């Protein structure tokens, strides 16, 4: 990605600028506890929770910044925040 003077950019540049690298803690599902209530998908501020064909959900780690809202709000504590080790 080349930068433009003045920081001008078109909409949708995060398609190339993957922001998942900001993450310190990574959300991980425990599908045995998940009741498919969809709260995590609804509350994710970055649209980084995607539905799967089987009704469960998965994280898009290219964009999940690890804010932890999903884990905090999950009524079944089915999401654990795990320290990223790179």
């Amino acid at each position, binding site marked *: 990605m080349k930068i433009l*003077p*003045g920081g001008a950019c078109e909409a949708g540049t995060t398609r190339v600028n993957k922001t998942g690298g900001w993450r310190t803690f990574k959300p991980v599902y425990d599908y045995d506890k998940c009741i498919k209530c969809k709260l995590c998908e609804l509350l994710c501020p970055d649209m980084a929770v995607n539905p799967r064909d089987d009704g469960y959900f998965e994280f898009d780690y290219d964009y999940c910044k690890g804010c932890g809202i999903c884990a905090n709000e999950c009524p079944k504590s089915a999401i654990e925040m795990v320290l990223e080790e790179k």
Partner: protein
Amino acid sequence: MAPENKLDKSKMVVVEGSYAVAHAVKTCRPNVISAYPITPQTHIVEDLSQFMADGEIPNCEYINVESEFSALSALVGSSAAGARCYSATTSQGLELMHEVLFNVSGMRLPVVMTIVNRAVSAPISIWNDQQDSISQRDTGWIQLYAENIQEISDMTAQAYKISEDKDILMPAMTCMDGFILSHVYEPVVLLEQDLTDEFLPAYEPERILDPKNPLSFGAFADPNYYAEFRYLQEQAMQKALKKIEDVANEFYDIYGRYYGGLIDEYRTDDADIIIMAMGSIVGTIKDLIDKLRDRNVKVGLLKVRAFRPFPAEAIKEVIKDSKVIVTLDKNISLGLNEGALCTETKSVLYNSDIRVPVIGYMIGHGGRDIKVDTIEKIVDDAEEVIKTGIRIESQFADLKEELL
């Protein structure tokens, strides 16, 4: 050799400095003017307001704002939308704009603003020095300083041409000394509309805010990207060095008037002592130089027109064969005991092979009159430095010891 200034006396009128600037802005055909009054700048925006009321500035919005912060913020949006923008301010007003100055420059918006130089509070002073604009030197604005009303008027059109160049796109401050230039009546040639239309093309930015083709300006840059934006700004400033010279020459070709490009020289050819200064003080120095030259004192003047970008090479070229440099500053960096011109001149010489002593004087703070006698005494000091070396590197020139 600098071109000879050709002033057409038949075109001259006697007007106030502020009026000459307002008239110059009008002939540049601005699209948005934001205005907030502050002494000694107010007359400029008042005159522009009158032009607006008389229908003399077509296709232009005149925005009354509630503070200087708003004045410049309004121009951020306007300039990003493709408008040629203008405002004027001074002193506390300029300091209130500080945050927005960085945004204008960072977004590469070629706004032009007249700074009517005034001292900063506290204590309150409405009189002239150059502390206000000098304190904004790192904000990424081109800074040009004018010697007289004719120059500040003509500099307005030059500033737009420099700033709006596609390789530059950096905002510019054109600086005039408060009261000394803003409130004085002098004979001038008002910027000619027909010539300005020839000199200054319409502003055609490559990227603008447009709902049909949405863009963000000044978008977030994380540590992976930020430094490169700063690098591009610095690169633009370096390109502006040549552009300022080119534009001064183009201006001369069309209007026949010339005041120097990055710098100007007066009787420097064989000078042992070179005085460096910016703004209206230059006229006083020229008078003194004529007087001293009659007494065979080899003294010359280096007028600094462009303070940002700083014309390091042009300065070195002029001073390399002299025996002492004297810098006069209407500002001080508190804690360094030097004015900016002194510090920066020394800094560009340090790693060069030019070994000329530099002595600095802080002078004319808060509007104190700068007398010929004061500068003459400084020249005496400089002669002493040639003989015996530097004793005091930087000092106030006109302190009243009896008040301390």
